[in-house]
C-alpha cells in the first residue's frame, strides 16, 4: 500500500529525472516534431467553423474520404461522455483531429502522428447537443481529408 506521500515523492523524482534527460514534452517537441504545433494552438481551439479551424492550423479545404474513419455511437445517452475514435489507413498522416460540429468550440483534440504510432486514437468527448462529429486527417503532402458521423445526444454534456 502506497501512501499519498510516497506517490508525491516518487512522481517528483520521476519529473526530475525526465527533466534531466530532456524528455519533458515541451523540450522534446521543440527538438523533434515538425510543423507549427509546437505551442498550444489557442486559435485552433477557439475556432467555431471548419474554415476558421483550417486557417488556424494552416490546412487546405477538407475533402471527404473513405480512407478516414470515425467511430462513435449512433445515440449517446450521456453527452458528457461520448466515446469517439479517429483513424486512417493512409500512410503519411501528420495529424488527426477530432471535431464536434455544434460544440461551443469545434475542436476537441489534435493528435500528432509519428512513425512510431498508428494513426488510430480513441478518446471520450463532451457534446452539448446532437451533432456531427468529424475525424480529420492532415496529410504530410498537404491534403486534408475527413469523415463525418452523426451522433444523437439525449442528455447534453455542457452545464445544464
Amino acid at each position: 500500500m502506497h501512501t499519498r506521500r510516497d506517490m508525491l515523492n516518487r512522481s517528483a523524482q520521476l519529473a526530475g529525472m525526465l527533466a534531466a534527460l530532456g524528455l519533458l514534452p515541451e523540450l522534446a517537441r521543440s527538438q523533434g516534431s515538425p510543423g507549427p504545433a509546437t505551442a498550444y494552438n489557442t486559435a485552433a481551439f477557439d475556432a467555431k467553423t471548419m474554415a476558421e479551424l483550417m486557417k488556424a492550423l494552416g490546412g487546405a479545404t477538407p475533402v471527404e474520404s473513405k480512407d478516414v474513419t470515425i467511430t462513435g455511437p449512433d445515440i449517446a445517452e450521456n453527452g458528457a461522455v461520448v466515446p469517439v475514435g479517429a483513424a486512417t489507413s493512409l500512410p503519411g498522416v501528420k495529424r488527426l483531429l477530432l471535431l464536434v460540429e455544434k460544440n461551443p468550440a469545434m475542436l476537441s483534440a489534435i493528435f500528432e502522428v509519428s512513425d512510431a504510432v498508428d494513426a488510430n486514437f480513441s478518446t471520450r468527448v463532451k457534446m452539448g447537443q446532437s451533432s456531427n462529429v468529424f475525424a480529420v486527417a492532415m496529410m504530410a503532402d498537404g491534403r486534408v481529408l475527413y469523415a463525418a458521423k452523426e451522433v444523437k445526444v439525449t442528455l447534453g454534456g455542457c452545464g445544464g
Partner: protein
Amino acid sequence: MADPMRIRAQAAGDKATVRVLMAHEMETGLRKDAAGKAIPAWYIQEVSAQLNGKTVMTAQWGPSVAKNPFLQFSVRGAKAGDKIGVSWVDNKGDKRSDEATVT
C-alpha cells in the same frame, strides 16, 4: 498534484495497445455554479507518450474532452517489458507523468 493515471499497455503482434485513464476535472469554463458564477476553465492541454523514454505521440486537447479522460492508441514496435510513459500538462501548468510496462 493530481491523482495518478491508470495506464495499461498490452502487446499484440508487433505493436502495443495503450489505454490511459487520467484523473482530471476537465472544466470547460462554460459551466456555472449554484450561485450563477462561471466555473473557471481547467483542462488538460497537452498530452504526450513515450516509448522507453522516446516521445512517440503528442496531442493537444481542448476543453471538450470528457472528464477523467480516456485515451487509446497503438505504439508500433513495442514489446513486452518496454516502458510506456504518458504525461500531461493542464492550462494551470499542473503536470503529471506516469509509466507502465508493456505486458
